[in-house]
């Protein structure tokens, strides 16, 4: 483990990513400690600029809610949605990709046609439809984001399975009478996992961006402190109080940057040959 960390830490950008990510995680964990009150409750006069009041150091939004509190609590929402949607997308992708790659033939044809259909459809448009049909609560939004993000992991898993299923150790497994399920999950999957795990960081970064875009359009859960909601709110006062939109945008930027840097760092540490590419 320490050896792996040393490999990871060789790249400065990977370290920066890790520090930023830990910072965002710390914000999410301490949100309840520093801002125990509801972040969507009124805290002061509306449109107070940052650094005017020591208690409301990031200022207040259009209706007088504490921006700092919304940023800290928003970190929870973004990470939560990002992680959960990523887990769902990766699970769907692995299952469909494994079935298509392992069985080939008709199963592969059908599953790949479906994957292609999802790729042809603009995923944000599909997301809009899912939210329109199933409503915009935290749970439905997370599931909807997961449902539009599984195509690339499925293709990756399929490619790995296609190349692994004819290897000798799998033939050996067949000869000693292992069932398909054992072959798929105990033998091939562990070998196919690393590139999919690395790609998970991309899925998570995109999931966070998708949620913020939905929230910006007022189509995400309005009852939670989401960074995208705040940006959408600030749009109405852009001319005079642009900081309301600017601050949460920086939070999103830092989080997405951190997740992708960590992913890239993991990739470089796992495939040292590709370093510098």
């Amino acid at each position, binding site marked *: 483990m320490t050896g792996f960390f040393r490999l990871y830490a060789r790249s400065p950008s990977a370290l920066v990513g890790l520090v930023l990510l830990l910072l965002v995680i710390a914000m999410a964990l301490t949100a309840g400690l520093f801002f125990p009150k509801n972040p969507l409750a009124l805290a002061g006069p509306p449109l107070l600029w940052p650094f005017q009041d020591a208690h409301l150091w990031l200022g207040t939004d259009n209706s007088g809610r504490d921006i700092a509190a919304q940023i800290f609590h928003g970190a929870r929402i973004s990470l939560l949605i990002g992680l959960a949607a990523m887990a769902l997308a990766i699970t769907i992708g692995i299952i469909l990709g494994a079935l298509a790659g392992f069985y080939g033939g008709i199963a592969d044809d059908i599953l790949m046609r479906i994957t292609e259909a999802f790729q042809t459809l603009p995923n944000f448009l599909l997301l809009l439809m899912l939210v329109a*049909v199933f409503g915009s609560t935290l749970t439905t939004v997370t599931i909807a984001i997961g449902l539009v993000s599984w195509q690339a992991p499925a293709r990756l898993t399929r490619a790995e399975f296609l190349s692994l299923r004819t290897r000798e150790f799998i033939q050996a497994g067949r000869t000693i009478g292992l069932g398909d399920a054992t072959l798929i999950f105990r033998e091939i999957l562990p070998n196919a996992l690393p590139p999919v795990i690395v790609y998970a960081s991309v899925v998570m970064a995109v999931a966070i961006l998708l949620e913020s875009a939905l929230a910006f359009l007022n189509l995400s859960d309005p009852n939670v402190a989401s960074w995208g909601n705040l940006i959408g709110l600030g749009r109405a006062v852009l001319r005079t109080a642009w900081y309301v939109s600017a601050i949460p945008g920086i939070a999103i930027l830092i989080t997405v940057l951190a997740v992708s840097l960590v992913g890239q760092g993991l990739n470089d540490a796992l495939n040292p040959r590709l370093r510098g590419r």
Partner: protein
Amino acid sequence: MRVLALAGRRLLSSLPTLLIILVGLFLLLQLAPGDTVDALVAQMGGGDQKLTEELRRFYGLDAPVAVQLSRYLWRLVQFDLGHSAIYGKPVASVILERLPATLLLMGSALSLAFFAGIVLGILAARKVNQWPDTLISTLGLVFYATPSFWFGLMGIVVFAIKLAWLPPGGFETVGAGYVGLARVLDIARYLVLPTLTLALIFLAIYLRIMRASMLEVLTLDFVRTARAKGVAEQAVIVRHVLRNALLPVVTLIGLQAGTMLGGSVVVESVFALPGLGRLAYESVVQRDLNTLLGIVFVSALLVIAVNFIVDLLYARLDPRIA
């Protein structure tokens, strides 16, 4: 000719995909709470039972789902997208009105992302691990992480509100009555910020892939051969490396055409552009399901068309395919 046949076969194979999309979405929309008639009645300020039933019969919504689906598909074959109850005219004409803005935005954003991404990618690859590479790669990472709508809003703050160089939104100056070149220039001014906003994330992706693919190709034997026989460095890059290194980027354009169309939903609503994306958002909010299905159909066709062009380009770049 063989290239065309090949691309044509790919085009044909996208028909089942299109069918899956349409059937899937039609069934999905059956799950939606409330149909067009509900939305219509709500817009009229309520109506009695008899009126709703009559409207349902008029729009064919009283038939079983399977019948509605087959009717819908049959109409699509004839390019009839149905009638928008909200806009009060055929969906096809609603979409046609909104299509130019989106095509213009997508075309300009794609060209910007493609050319800027390639140039920056080449620059970074030629100075790999030196400061220009570090700078370009860092910029790429930041662009990738920037939410497009936020970038758009900040662009409005700086260039429209503070500096007053560009208009904050819209498609052209209303009531100015420009014609010809003056109108083109006017629209171009309105499209500067939206184009930049939509192109940003794709620029970041293309530059990253272009850089990696240049580095890959630069290590290949034929490049060494070209250099060994004394071809000038400029010519090695342009004539030998570039053509090969472009392939992954071109593939990516086809793969991401859908993502770009999705991105234009957000960008169009930031800048109040009267495009397809904004129409999609409006029809979600107004529950105009007929229009929404039509938009999805047209977007899928657009994505398939882009992929067709990409196939042709691909064969042109790589003679081994044709």
